[in-house]
């Protein structure tokens, strides 16, 4: 195929499907108990230098507990899929755990404003950046999930976004039209937060999928954090509810309120006051250091973080808010 145009951005991962197949060939197919502490899962499956992807959408069904643990364990030189990353990126930027990033949406927390810490880190020159879009990264995960080296799309043509990406524009052999080839993205490790999983890793979540089905399929190693463990009989009773099958999964960690301070659909709404506190405290480096000590480094785990920020009383407030219990609609 004749290459019409190509981005000058760095491709951080090899899109070769045969290399991915060789890796997937080695993964265990047996249903075995994969339950472990989040601390152990992060220590074992997130290695310095890995390329990391985080499920959910910014501060929605996002494994924030895992992001804290990655920072607490001071992981280094990670690659990161900045796919609608908002509070997850804010946490990872605070730890400066990544040094290269595929950008679709970064720094911002949508309507809440921009993270000074993420912004400073991105403007520091310490981070290698390749530009994409939300759909481009979703398409790259789709290609990986399909086991093919790329998928064609029709966005980004004519813009600087493609110029700073690693995509290529070619002529379609069927129609003669230009299409963009989005290279497959096989993350070394991903973390996805779900509502329910059994001990083998069969996982269910409710609400929007974002790109998590393709992400689960594309990832070489996958950590599932779950609001609660359920019995495998329950999975077998209603297999149509399973969104992620066990054989993709390496670790299952039961982390109630694992998306806090973000939203977990049908469970709890985001803690807007606490998210605002994050954004405000970042403006003062000394204050931010103390804040990180209090909320990440001096916390044993997510349970302690939650206890330090309102505990069960706060969780019940956020549940009432999520379920609109006291609002007429």
């Amino acid at each position, binding site marked *: 195929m004749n290459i019409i145009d190509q981005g000058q951005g760095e491709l951080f991962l090899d899109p070769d499907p045969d290399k991915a197949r060789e890796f997937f060939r080695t993964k265990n197919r047996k249903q075995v108990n994969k339950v472990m502490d989040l601390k152990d899962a992060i220590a074992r499956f997130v290695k310095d230098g890995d390329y990391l992807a985080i499920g959910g959408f910014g501060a929605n069904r996002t494994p924030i507990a895992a992001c804290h643990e990655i920072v607490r364990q001071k992981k280094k030189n990670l690659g990161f899929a900045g796919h609608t990353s908002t509070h997850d990126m804010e946490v990872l930027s605070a730890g400066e755990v990544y040094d290269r990033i595929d950008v679709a949406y970064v720094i911002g927390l949508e309507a809440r404003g921009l993270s000074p810490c993420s912004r400073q880190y991105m403007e520091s020159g310490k981070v290698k950046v390749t530009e994409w879009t*939300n759909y481009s990264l979703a398409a790259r995960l789709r290609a990986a999930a399909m086991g093919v080296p790329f998928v064609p799309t029709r966005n980004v043509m*004519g813009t600087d976004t493609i110029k700073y990406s690693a995509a290529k524009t070619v002529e379609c052999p069927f129609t003669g039209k230009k299409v963009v080839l989005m290279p497959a993205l096989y993350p070394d490790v991903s973390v996805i937060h779900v509502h329910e999983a059994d001990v083998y890793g069969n996982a269910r979540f409710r609400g*929007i999928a974002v790109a998590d089905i393709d992400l689960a399929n594309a990832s070489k190693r996958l950590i599932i954090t779950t609001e609660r463990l359920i019995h495998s009989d329950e999975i077998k009773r209603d297999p149509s509810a399973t969104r992620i099958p066990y054989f993709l999964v390496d670790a299952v960690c039961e982390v109630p309120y694992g998306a806090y301070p973000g939203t977990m659909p049908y469970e709890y709404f985001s803690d807007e006051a606490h998210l605002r506190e994050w954004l405000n405290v970042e403006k003062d480096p000394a204050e931010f250091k103390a804040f990180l000590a209090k909320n990440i480094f001096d916390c044993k785990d997510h349970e302690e973080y939650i206890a330090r920020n309102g505990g069960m009383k706060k969780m019940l407030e956020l549940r009432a808010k999520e379920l609109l219990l006291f609002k007429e609609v």
Partner: protein
Amino acid sequence: MAEYNAMEIMICVAARELENGATVGVGTGAPCAAAMLAQKTTAPDLVIMFEAGGIYPTLPEMPISVGDSRTFYKAAMAGSMGDIMEACSRGFVDYTFLGGAQIDMYGNLNSTVIGNHAKPKVRFPGSGGANDFASFCWRMMVMTPQNNRRFVEKVDFLTTPGWLQGGDSRAKSGLPLGSGPYKIITDMAIMDFEPQSKRMRVISIHPGYSFKDVQENCGFELLKAPQLADTPAPSDEELRLLREEIDPYRYVIGR
């Protein structure tokens, strides 16, 4: 006449552009407020779509994120990003509403960087879903305050495609045929694009402003429609809905 601020008139004017039964891809903030206002006024069957997967929700309040639970509250479907963006790619989505740090005379948007890409003076969030929506949706609209910092001769980084370099450059680019910028709505005026050159053209002026005001708050030369319309001011009912039902905590209209 009722008092209103710049954000309120932008939202009211934008809402009137959405016809009943149309599909629209929206982001949080002002675009979402405009879509909600349209649903409560002229377009009760407006199909709102959010890029994270929410399809046709009944929004109980303003979402904080395009992926929060409100975006699929009493919805037709809680789908995926692929479901939304691929519906756009197939030509199912009529409108999108976007913003950006900079816009040029062809409606190209920058939401990536000011200055050098490798070590930028200012880093912004990037495309997010903006490039995708603007590439795929039939008609792209932009809501943005009118000033010289935003309306620039040349965007520092062309994140999201408008009419690219004007003329037939977009048609030749490979982007889906027939898609492109439609209207730009600011706190002073409504602009469209002259069909041949694809340059931005003022078509309607909001109450209290003149063409001169609009031109003085724009970093490039604007075209002027032969007949300039007067934008009707926000009605009492539009303002009531916006203030009491859509944004009671003034998340957007308080900015």
